[in-house]
């Protein structure tokens, strides 16, 4: 007998609610992950650019280590491994984060128990892993962007009396940013896609929900198709939005 597609059943009822939950979780994990990845990436890039050797070594070790080890292993490390070396107080703090947002509550027309809430120790581990992993790439992209600005720009601005920081702020960075935006977008999109690995810890993001739909409703093809389309939509929206922003605010410049 031929397989009967059932798209309606996939996007309504319980599967539909799961997908919505997964979608929101994926967005949250990704958004927070991106914010922290950017912050860490900037810090690591700045450390690398100082002339203070220990900072430089730390930054090099950081980028090489996190870029060259599997993300899934890093996620397991932060979840199972990091707890062992962190002080109890921090572990307790992470564990009780879960209780900050007790369920149930309603969102987007659904009733939620709160179980999928972001601040579980699983989610926190995943966000740390995604942020740290991606920040290593971001740091390298930022550095490449800054290095691509000709040295004579720094020289010309310093020669007029601008301090090093002023020269970076008003001359180097505005030029570097325009170069760096496209590779940064692709790092953000990578993070969003990589957030699907969160299901390994049972974080109920989009991919996890798709597997649930497969297990409980047998809608494997439909579930994964819809999940894929949702990832695609998120990526396109993010990419489009940043490009638009860039066009409006950064690219009013001609070479």
């Amino acid at each position, binding site marked *: 007998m031929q397989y009967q597609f059932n798209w309606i059943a996939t996007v309504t009822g319980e599967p539909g609610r799961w997908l919505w939950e997964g979608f929101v979780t994926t967005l949250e994990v990704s958004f927070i992950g991106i914010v922290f990845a950017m912050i860490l990436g900037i810090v690591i890039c700045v450390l690398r650019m100082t002339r203070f050797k220990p900072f430089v070594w730390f930054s090099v070790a950081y980028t090489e280590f996190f870029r060259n080890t599997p993300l899934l292993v890093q996620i397991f490390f932060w979840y199972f491994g990091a707890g062992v070396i962190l002080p109890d107080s921090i572990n307790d703090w992470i564990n009780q984060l879960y209780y900050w947002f007790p369920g149930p509550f309603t969102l987007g027309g659904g009733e939620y128990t709160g179980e999928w809430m972001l601040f579980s120790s699983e989610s926190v581990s995943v966000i740390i892993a995604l942020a740290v992993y991606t920040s290593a790439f971001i740091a390298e992209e930022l550095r490449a962007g800054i290095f691509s600005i000709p040295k004579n720009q720094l020289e010309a601005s310093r020669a007029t*009396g*601008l*301090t090093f920081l*002023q020269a970076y702020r008003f001359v180097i960075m505005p*030029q570097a940013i325009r170069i760096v935006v496209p590779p940064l977008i692709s790092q953000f999109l990578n993070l969003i896609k990589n957030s699907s690995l969160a299901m390994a810890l049972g974080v109920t993001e989009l991919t996890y929900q798709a597997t649930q739909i497969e297990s409980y409703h047998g809608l494997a093809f439909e579930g994964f198709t819809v999940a894929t389309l949702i990832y695609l939509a998120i990526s396109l929206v993010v990419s489009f939005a940043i490009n638009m922003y860039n066009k409006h605010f950064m690219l009013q410049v*001609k070479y």
Partner: protein
Amino acid sequence: MAMIEVNDLHKWYGDFHVLKGINESVEQGEVLVICGPSGSGKSTFIRCINRLEEYQKGTIMFDGRDIHAPEVNINTLRSEIGIVFQQFNLYPHLTVLKNVTLAPVKVKGMDKKAADELGLQLLHRVGIHDQAHKYPAELSGGQQQRVAIARGLAMEPKVMLFDEPTSALDPEMINEVLNVMKDLAREGKTMLCVTHEMGFAREVADRVIFMDYGEVIEQNTPSEFFKNPQHERSQQFLKEIL
């Protein structure tokens, strides 16, 4: 008191002795032309004066102060010495006017309106006020270099350094830049110009020095230097550039 007083200036790049004891004194209002073969250390020399290059031995006094004296702020020093580079080095992301006003606004804290006024006035002086709101890439090489001169003047420097300002230009644009420089010279600006433009040197320079292998091997008035070079190497050099 001389505006710039260079005493036994030595610089090495590793083992390579680039500047081998330069002694030079430039008076206020003087126009000094520096020429010499490529690689003789001309750029290195003038870049030492605003500390774009560090040197290992000797002293440079600027306006009565050792440029390395602890009380001398490097950014203040640099704002008192304008420099124009061979490759213009304008800021591509800023309009012509903003290229000129960036330093007055950020270094001197001049308010934007006053800076714009100053900027337009300087652009007028170099003949490109009508391009003030364009970006550097929209200008010809000669126009870009004139913007670079206006940018160099924006901090009202006591001295202007020029490092082969016309070498990267198409021949038909050289004069528009030289004319601006001549005007400056006639207005009494103290200038050190690395250039091989003999017409410019003859017209406005007070003195020409000839550098070779990191040393000043000859100096004279422009007319004497070009008519009657003393040193064999300067004779050779002048033959080549003619």
